[in-house]
């Protein structure tokens, strides 16, 4: 197990190193430089341009710039955010907890909801209920994240004003609330974005889990369980579901990129002050360092997510540990 862990950690480190190289290449292959947008202004004199480039080391040889860049990255420095006038790492680390909160609520919620839906479908396999649910999950599966976000916003904050429009807390009242009030205020704001992301993610979980359950149903041990006289419900829960849960662990790892991407759009739509919101607003302001910083952190999150899923898998399936 330890050797497996070491090997997977090594692989993850290599991946992060390659990601850093790719983002570096991206920055330097692009026309102009990160400042071109501000410095293309005719009012900026040549002298200012040269000074700024020198200040940020952009006049150094490419190899030296790369070494500096990797060195800075290794120290957790991601550059300077112009629009926030703060280091990128600070902007992102302030926003990250909100994104993680949204993602983890949606992750847990979507797996619970998705597995439940799949169980209902498999228990009524081939009936109208199964077909209808399949159509519904396909509908949500095919839906762009941002569109469902917009519809949810329209439906539940304007047409049927149950939830607050956006943000993580009430901008005015939050300061004056007691502890209980603050918690309720936060939950009220979290509800709609988290629900939207949960519904989006659970569609793919349900579709995946339904297929996984149908895969194990023809197995011999299921026939044995039925012959033992177990009810269909017991067969499903005790025998089919347990064995069909292994692929779910793989799906957790695979669902990370989609969950993160979904969070980006959901955060923008509901003005949820997370990493996605910071990065997406930075696009409009051409705050290049912040966008690239978001790309790097996002990739590291995905790498860690799949690493975690692999370790979980090894823990759950002893056959894998032996190798």
């Amino acid at each position: 197990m330890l050797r497996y862990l070491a090997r997977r950690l090594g692989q993850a480190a290599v991946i992060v190193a390659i990601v850093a190289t790719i983002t570096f290449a991206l920055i330097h292959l692009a026309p102009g430089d990160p400042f071109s947008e501000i410095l293309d202004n005719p009012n900026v004199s040549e002298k200012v341009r040269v000074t700024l480039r020198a200040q940020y080391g952009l006049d150094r040889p490419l190899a030296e710039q790369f070494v500096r860049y990797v060195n800075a990255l290794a120290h957790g420095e991601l550059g300077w955010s112009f629009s926030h006038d703060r280091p990128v790492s600070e902007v992102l680390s302030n926003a990250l907890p909100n994104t993680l909160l949204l993602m983890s609520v949606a992750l847990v919620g979507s797996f619970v909801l998705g597995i439940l839906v799949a169980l209902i479908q498999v228990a009524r396999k081939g009936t109208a209920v199964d077909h209808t649910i399949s159509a519904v999950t396909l509908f949500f599966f095919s839906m762009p994240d941002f569109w469902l976000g917009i519809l949810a916003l329209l439906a539940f904050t304007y047409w049927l004003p149950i939830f607050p429009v956006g943000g993580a807390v009430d901008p005015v009242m939050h300061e004056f609330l007691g502890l209980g009030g603050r918690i309720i205020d936060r939950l009220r704001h979290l509800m709609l974005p988290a629900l939207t992301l949960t519904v989006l993610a659970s569609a793919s979980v349900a579709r995946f889990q339904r297929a996984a359950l149908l895969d194990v149903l023809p197995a011999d041990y299921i026939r044995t369980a039925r012959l033992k006289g177990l009810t269909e419900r017991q067969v499903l829960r005790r025998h089919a579901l347990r064995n069909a849960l292994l692929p779910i662990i793989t799906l957790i790892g695979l669902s990370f990129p989609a969950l993160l991407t979904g969070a980006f759009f959901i955060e923008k739509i509901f003005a949820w002050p997370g990493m996605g919101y910071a990065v997406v607003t930075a696009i409009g302001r051409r705050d290049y360092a912040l966008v690239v910083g978001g790309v790097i952190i996002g990739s590291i999150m995905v790498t860690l997510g799949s690493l975690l899923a692999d370790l979980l898998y090894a823990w759950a399936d002893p056959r894998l540990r032996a190798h």
Partner: protein
Amino acid sequence: MPGQTQDSARIEPARPRESPLALGVRAILRKRSSRVAIIVLGVIVMIAILAPFIAPYDPAAQPDIVAGKDLPPSLAHPFGTDPYSRDVLSRVIYGARLSLTIGILATMVSLTFGVAYGAIAGYASGLVDGVMMRLLDALLSIPRLLLLLGVLVAWPHLSIGSLILFLGLTGWFGLSRIVRGQVLALKHAEFVTAAEALGASRRRILVRHLLPNLVSPIAVASTLGIAHVIVLEAGLSYLGIGVPQPMASWGNIIYDGTDQIARLWWMSLFPGLFMVITVMTLNVLGESLRDVYERR
């Protein structure tokens, strides 16, 4: 098979092997859901092709920027008008054209890269394969949308052509892994050994003997890939960095209405519906194909 005993089923008469294409077509026609999907997709494709004849107005025309803007759906404008007084129905119809074209072209770029990369890695094996696969792992761990955000922010004001290129260049990672697996599995098949014995070159074996066996995964990947690109392009356009104005894509119509989502609900609802229906049909078709190819 009805009317046959178990024994006679076992001695199957030799049947000529069906080509993957015929198999795919039959798979689509067999299931009702995919029959419906192909009809609906056909209608949307026809709308896209015939856009100039169907659209009631010029999609870029701004007839009356004062009195004609932000009109809710009516008989004259079934999908309403946008803040520039443009007819949303016409924009959605032209949007079908652009969104589908981008989806198809970008997927073709992805296919080219994915198949080439995967086939080379699988056929070369050893160190070359190892390095190529590690690189692929890294590329796969950058979420595609984030990668595109990084690229599109570095290259502002992109033309449609470059947008398609970038969408395609970020979409081949998954496919190349599948292709590599297939090539690895087939590399030691008898027909490859036979070709090698006959003195065929590596290139000939790759192109003539291995690639034709990759038709099934490619068909599945491209159907699902087009759906994916349509959603991605819409997402980027929705963030304001995809298709440039005044062209209409489903995503940038929604973008035009985001400042006043609540008041201009028709600007997000209708293009989104078209998009979801298109993506649904592609997903249904892709999955029917996958079902039949994987069962084989």
